[in-house]
Each structure stands twice: as C-alpha cells, then as structure tokens.
C-alpha cells in the first residue's frame, strides 16, 4: 500500500506541475461553461435547453472528465517511452501498485475538477437568476465518480497500447466523439432516428444523461437509474480492462 501511495503522490505532483493540465482539465471546461452561458443568454429561452445552466453544468463536467482520460494516457505513455517504468519494474513494485498509482491521482483530480466546475456553475446560476439545486449538484458530483473511472479506464488502455505521440491523438477522437454523441453540446434526446440510436450506443450519452438528471433530482428509471447503471457497468469493464491490459503489457515487457 505504501508503494501505491508513493507512486500516487509522484503522479499527482507530476500532474500539478504540468501547466497543460490546468489549461485542459480546468481552464477549457470553465471557458466552455462561460461561453455557452453567454450563448444561452443571447438566444430565446425556449429555443435550446441544452445550454440552460442545469443542463450545461453537468454536461461540461462530463466534458472535463474526457481530458482526465487524455492526461491518464499521456502520463502512462510518457512513462513507458523512457526507462522510468523499467526502473520501477526492477523494484519490489507490482502491477497492482502501478495501476492503482495511476488511477487514484486521476480520480482525485477529477473530483477536484468537478468541484471547481460546479462552483463556477453555481456562481453563474446565481448571477443569471436561475440558481442550481445544491443537493442536486452534490449528488451529481458523487455520481460523476463512475464516469471518471470510465474515462480513466479508456486512458489506461490507450496509454498502455499506444506511444506518447499516438495516445493523445486517439484521446482527441474520443473527446470529439464523446462531446458529440454524449449530447453535451446539443439535445441528443430530441434528435431521434439514427442519430439517437447512435448516441445510445455510446457510453458518453448515459454519463451526460445521468448527471443532468441528478442535478435536477429526477430519479426516474429511464432518466437516471438505467443510465447510471450503464455508466457503472462501463466503468467497471473499462477499469478492469485497463488493469488487465497494463498487467499483460508489463508481463510482455518483462518477457
């Protein structure tokens, strides 16, 4: 356990000392939150509900988590590209210590990220006179943990399978797909037809849906429970797959 915490602490420090981490994990989501609020205030109220603060804030929180995936992949692929991991392989550290040491800091960063996003969203909601439900916000932050794990799982897989040049590119594709099919920037539910079917095939759609339902305290089966269950299952599968891929790669490296 001590070894896991030592590696966790190292990874947190590395992340906190990377200016790009602040720009992508905090700055960019906040900018999107402000820009989309301005857009929402500039168009007729009933035209696009996606940009209303109670829909926008959870959407942006999920969007921000996608950058956690990018940094997980970047962190692992960079460590793999040099001999730093090789040095650690020659110490008593196990694959479990290493994977936990990559996952835990990212999970902590994602929780801090959602606190910052929702704090900013709350301030905005007070300014525009549409105050967010505090209980809903707290519940949403809690329910964002499984989706954070899901994105970390993606990052773990990409970081292990691809090098530090390819992994960020692949993550950018997932971020674009996630933003689009997750219904973050438009109301996917109202599209219908093939578009809605495609959105429903992607886990991102359920991340956004469960987060939005949590903020407005909508606990209906279709709006909240089912999407949440799908997100939890995807998080478990992707995290397990990420850990398995890492162990397998470590065994191959030591072959």
């Amino acid at each position: 356990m001590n070894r896991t915490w030592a590696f966790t602490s190292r990874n947190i420090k590395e992340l906190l000392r990377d200016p790009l981490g602040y720009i992508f994990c905090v700055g960019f989501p906040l900018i999107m939150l402000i820009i989309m609020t301005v857009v929402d205030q500039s168009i007729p109220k009933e035209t696009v509900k996606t940009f209303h603060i109670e829909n926008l804030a959870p959407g942006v929180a999920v969007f921000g988590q996608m950058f956690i995936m990018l940094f997980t992949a970047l962190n692992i692929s960079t460590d793999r590209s040099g001999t730093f991991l090789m040095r650690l392989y020659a110490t008593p550290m196990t694959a479990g210590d290493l994977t936990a040491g990559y996952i835990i800091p990212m999970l902590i960063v994602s929780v801090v990220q959602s606190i910052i996003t929702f704090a900013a969203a709350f301030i905005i909601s007070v300014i525009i006179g549409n105050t967010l439900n505090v209980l809903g916000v707290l519940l949403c932050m809690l329910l964002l943990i499984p989706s954070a794990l899901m994105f970390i799982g993606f990052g773990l897989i990409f970081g292990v399978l691809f090098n530090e040049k390819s992994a960020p590119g692949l993550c950018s594709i997932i971020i674009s797909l996630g933003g689009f099919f997750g219904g973050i920037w438009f109301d996917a539910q109202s599209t219908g037809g093939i578009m809605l079917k495609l959105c429903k095939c992607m886990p991102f759609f359920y991340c956004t849906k469960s987060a939005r339902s949590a903020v407005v305290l909508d606990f209906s089966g279709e709006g909240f429970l089912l999407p949440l269950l799908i997100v939890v299952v995807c998080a478990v599968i992707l995290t397990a797959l990420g850990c398995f891929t890492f162990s397998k790669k470590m065994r191959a490296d030591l072959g």
Partner: protein
Amino acid sequence: MLAVETKGLTKQYKDLTAVDSLDLSIEQGELFSLLGVNGAGKTTTVRMLCCLSQATSGEAFVMGNSCDKDKSAVKSIIGISPQDTAVAERLTVEENLIFMCRIYGFDKQKCEQRTGELIRIFGMQNVKNKRAKTLSGGWKRKLSIAMALIGEPKVLFLDEPTLGLDVLARRELWRAIESLKGKMTIILTTHYMEEAEQLSDRIAIMIEGRLASLGTLSQIEKQAGVQGLENAFVAIAERGAEK
C-alpha cells in the same frame, strides 16, 4: 557466495540470439565491466540479471537467488541505473530520492537519513531543490545512480552510465563510481574502453552475445597479444567476427 553467477544464460528473440550460453562468476565487492559494441548483448544480460527479461535457457543467480524463481528476493537486493536517465522529470532531486525511499518501504526517519546521505555523497546539495528536467545530463546521471543506490543494494547495475556525457561530466561520474568501489558489487556496461580500463577490477568482452574474453586488463592484453584495452578489444572483436 558469488554476487552474480550465470550458467549457460541464453536469450533468443525469434531468429536473433542476443545472449548465447553466457557463463559468468562475479565476486562480491567486485567492479565488473561488460564491454562490447552496440548489440553485443550487454544490456540484455543486465536485463536478465535484474529480472527485467526472462532467459530463454540457462540460469542466473544474484547473491544466490534465482532470477527466474525468486524474483522478489533479487529485486530487493539490486539497484539499477538504466541506459536513459530514468528519473521523474517534474520532481525535484530530493523528491525523486524520497519517492524511491518510499518504494522500498523506508519510514520517514530512514527516508531523510538516506536522502541526505546520497545528496552528500553525490554533491547534489546545490541542486537538491531543482526539478530533474532542468538538470544537465551529468546531474541527471548522478541522480539516476543515487536513485539506484537508495535501497542499499548489494549489487548495483550501471547500464552505460556515462553515455552522451561530456568529458568533464564523465570524469566526475567516474569519481562517484570509484567512491562506491568495495562497498557493493558493481556491474557496469559500457563501450568506452578508457572507462572500463579506469574503473574495473575485471572486464568481460562480449561479441555477438558470446563471451569472447574475461579477466583483468593485463590478462585480456595477454590473451589478445597487444597493449592497451582498446587494441585488445579490437583484436578480440576482429577474431570473433572472423569466426
């Protein structure tokens, strides 16, 4: 007990034999150099001895522990400074050392004592609060070796420790390595002849994965029939290539 022993150690990658039936016996406290051109099998040998690569056949023992069957025992008594400077770039010199202390499970007091000791030994007092990525190549190598020494290893592996360093940084690192002589067994891989000549008790010359010559500098010179390690190495390497 021998510090390192290999019996018919072989590593095969598909159609390439990187290390071919290597038999080595290295005494405790010895500074032993593995010399060879690129691709001679030096790093592969070190990797197998550090449990970072599985031997295709043969056996390797570090302080009597099998590198195949008793990996955790081997890992707890070795230290490795890989070819690249394997340091955490955004951590300071001190943080890198503390990180390694924690990996080896040292308590706070032991961490402070060991970190302070290594900073002093390698003269890193003035750079201890600098982030690794801002250090020069020479300082990074020193840090890398200090990190390998944190766990108080009985056997230290230095894989081409002075590769790419300027002459002053190289000489300074030699002095640091020399100061460790006798305190532990050191296995050094290099393709700098003067480095092996200056530092080693015994030298092994590897050619295409095989052990072409083994002994002290004078024994190798005698075997090759020429003076100087560089001339001896060239003579042995050319003979090996002819075979």
